[in-house]
């Protein structure tokens, strides 16, 4: 085989030292991620100090710990050969679906939604990890088929693999994460190169199923969207009608961001400090940044994300294995979709769905899940560098 493809050289087993070499880490990607988590800790440390009486640094301290833990996990994961995960695809997929299903049995409900599992030090939100696990496992399944022609049947089977966890998450109910999972699945299929006609068919099918079940459901009195979800989804279309309903949040967020002007209000940020803005260390943290640090701060965050996305897109082209390209595509979908939807809702451009801002929003599961995804990317990067070294 080697003889048949002389352009390839045999890769010698790499030493541990070689594997730990910084040359195998995408420093720019790492820098952008560390910059984002650092900015998150800084924001949490300077704002929302009065939220928990006597514990001004509660959120900042915790976020810093999650960040350090996440960075460690990322570096650790980057040292693994991600291609091994292909063989574990069934295990990974089962674990993912199982963990989501587990919250229905032992989960803790917060504000009517069953998303969390209580651990001794931590409330784990399995759906945050599910995003990464879906990237890994679905990319593996897709990769299995990628060299053969795609039939519509194959496409639908693969799509179903993505829709099962998404459906389970929607039942918790967690609309935001469900949509993210669908976005990951569709993006991976898109990168895999399934024909355009299939996309058209999937799109048409989605519209038919959604419209049909909604109409049928309404006819027999079943509501698929919870009242508040429906409110939130439509509120951004008419943001200033009634300050007491869902559009109130959008209004408050817009006022907060706008009032930041060029360089922000710093400690005079009344809008976010005085609780006019809900969820201000999670879903609406971007509005906090906008108010405290102004256009300068908000644009800086957007810049860090842009660098992050650029490195991921670059990695998609550089990956030594097409499996790596697919994983990078999935992770890009996961991160970019969350960033765009979250910022869009903070700026009144998109409906309010409980989607957090990766690495910026407070939350252990989200931070660690995101760093795990970045760890995978670092592993893909490391392999691609190895290839380069060998090709030289």
């Amino acid at each position, binding site marked *: 085989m080697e003889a048949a493809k002389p352009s390839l050289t045999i890769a010698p087993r790499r030493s541990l030292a070689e594997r730990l070499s910084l040359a195998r880490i995408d420093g720019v990607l790492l820098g952008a991620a560390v910059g984002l988590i650092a900015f998150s800790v800084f924001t949490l440390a300077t704002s929302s100090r009065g939220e928990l009486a006597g514990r001004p640094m509660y959120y900042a301290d915790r976020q810093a710990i999650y960040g350090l833990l996440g960075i460690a996990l990322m570096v650790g994961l980057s040292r693994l050969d991600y291609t091994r995960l292909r063989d574990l695809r069934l295990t990974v997929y089962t674990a993912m679906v199982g963990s989501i299903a587990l919250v229905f049995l032992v989960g803790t409900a917060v504000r009517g939604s069953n998303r969390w599992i209580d651990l001794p030090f931590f409330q784990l939100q399995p759906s945050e990890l599910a995003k990464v696990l879906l990237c890994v496992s679905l990319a593996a399944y897709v990769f299995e088929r990628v060299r053969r022609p795609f039939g519509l049947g194959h496409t639908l089977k693969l799509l179903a693999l993505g829709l099962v966890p998404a459906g389970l998450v929607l039942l918790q109910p967690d609309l935001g994460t469900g949509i993210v999972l669908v976005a990951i699945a569709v993006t991976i299929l898109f990168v895999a*190169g399934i024909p355009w006609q299939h996309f058209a068919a999937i799109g048409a099918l989605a519209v038919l199923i959604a419209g049909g079940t909604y109409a049928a459901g309404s006819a027999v009195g079943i509501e698929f969207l919870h009242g508040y979800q429906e409110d939130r989804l439509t509120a951004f279309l008419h943001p200033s009608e009634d300050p007491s309903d869902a559009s109130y949040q959008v209004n408050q967020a817009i006022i907060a961001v*706008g009032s930041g*002007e060029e360089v922000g*209000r710093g400690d005079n940020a009344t809008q976010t400090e005085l609780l*006019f803005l809900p969820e201000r260390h999670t879903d609406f943290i971007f509005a906090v940044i906008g108010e405290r640090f102004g*256009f300068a701060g908000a644009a800086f965050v957007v810049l860090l994300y842009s660098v992050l996305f650029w490195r991921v897109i670059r990695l998609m082209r550089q990956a030594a*294995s*097409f499996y790596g390209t697919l994983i990078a595509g999935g992770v890009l979908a996961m991160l970019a979709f969350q960033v765009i939807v979250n910022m869009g809702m903070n700026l009144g451009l998109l409906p309010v769905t409980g989607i957090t801002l990766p690495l910026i929003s407070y939350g252990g599961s989200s931070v660690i899940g995101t760093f795990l995804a970045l760890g995978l990317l670092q592993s893909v990067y490391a392999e691609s560098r190895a290839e380069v070294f060998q090709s030289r």
Partner: protein
Amino acid sequence: MYLLDRPEDIPPRLTDRLNLRIAIIGAVVVAAIATILLRLWSLQVLDGEHYRALAKDHGILDVRVHPPRGEILDRNGKLLVANRTVMSLQLRPSDLPSDRDERRAELRRLGDLLGLSQREIRQRVRATPQYAGYPVVLKQGVDRRLLFYLLENKERFPGVSVERTYVRSYKAGSLAAHILGIVGQVSPRQLKRPAYRGVAPGDVVGQSGVEYSYDRYLRGIAGSERIQVDALGRPKGMLGNRPARAGDNLRLTLDAGLQEVGEEALRDRGLPGGFVAMNVRSGAILGMGSYPSFDPSFYTRPHTKAEYETFGNRPGDPLVDRANQGGYPTGSAFKPITATAALEEGLIGPDTIFNDTGSLDIGGLVVHNAGGAANGPIDMSTALQVSSDVYFFSLGLHAEASGKGGQIQDWAHAYGLGQKPGIDLPAAGAGLIPTPAWRNRVYRSHKNPYIDRPWNQGDNVNLAVGQGDVMVTPLQLARAYAALANGGTLVRPHVGGRIVDVDGKTVERIKPPPKRHLKISDETRSVILGGLERAAMEPGGTSYSVMGGFPFPVAGKTGTAERGEGQEDQSWYSVVAPYGDPEIVVTVTVEHGGFGVESAAPIARTILERYFHLDAGGASGAAAAQSAGAE
């Protein structure tokens, strides 16, 4: 190593298709980020100022701080009206459950507890400016039971809080209730008047009595606090404040002790009536009361509309101040006015003798003395002493009356009758002095020959003895007697003594100048006062049986006014004392009290005894008299 093991791991060629798809994904991401940056630029840089202004306004709540209302004290510093704090129930609509059914259920529960309909609650909520966390006062004066119930069931009443507010506390019970008056929320009509500048809707102001007339001193000046609140309306710190200024205290001219004695004497008689005790020179009211009275603290507690109506419409009309608002014919107590007119207008001289045969024929109608007595030939002094009706009938017959006046009418007006007494209380009665013009204007149809008929000289005859259409309030009569006693000065009666600030410093002395000075000759005065002295102090005088034993001479006149068929007469007594150098006038009227000497005179004597400290061991009244003169 793995790469070799797995031929399919061979790096994919960057096919055109893959390149295109990655480029599409990249383009989507770039477009989204560009949109976000443009939106940020638009919100923060282009429209930033607008949103900065919105955010700065946000979360600032101006809270009105109500000052305690000034206290009301009697002339000796005895506390009559103070303040106490009560719990008032407030509702923050923003904290109500967001679920429509839950919200309704809570408001229903609340309405049941407070006795308010859903409509009333909604109206009050609407009447309060809406802002995050702005409280609506649903009820003032929450009783302890309700308070505890609400505290124990807090989670069932989100948005409901109970806070302290001031209400009046009546230290002397119902004493002088009509003079003190009550307070209440400022009415929309009052708010439009310049006197209520600085008063806000919902503020409490005086609505009657001195609470009303001295409101501008008592109410103080509301302060304000600019508070930073969070989205739930919870205070987060003060941005600035203008402290409230407590209202000034009001010292009345009233003597609580004398007031109590007068009210008690009237109450003991058990018939509706009123009394006035006033310094004849200054017009300072030492006591003024009306029976039946009411408990003003009723208005500090929550009541339903029906209960308010019932309270005001009880038999005997307890809310009416008979001393200041009750107009009645005075009977013979009017005679000094007729006498002044007759002497000053030269109808008769001081020594003119009439032969009182017991009856008089006026144009075919024969009128009699009360009790059918015949006093024989008498002069003015004796006519006053024995209260000869025939003597005064003749004066009425000979006095002229036309148009808006006449000799008796003009003098009655000069004495302040038929016009408001100018007292510093709202809603004083003006009474009525009948004139030809008045009667001919009011009674036009002439259907009833006895009542509904034009003016004739019989009306003048009736007026001369205080009967018929004449209406005088006890305060008016006291004021007229004071003018007679003090040499002709028509005083302005007042209950306000001085305004004292919270530090005890006198801010303002209330000394209203006299209304006018009457030109009455000393001779006329001495004849009339002499007649009244004889009426009180000499055997045969109408009030001798009551006043004869008084330690020093006084000058008093009874009045017994007919109140129509089948009704007991109205009893009057008006007395100035001491006779030689009058200090005080006391006027008492008792509805259905019979002869003046039966009901009114004993009450007047009790008040005089109190004034001159004769009730408590005969101590001299000089000190009290002097302080009364000083006011």
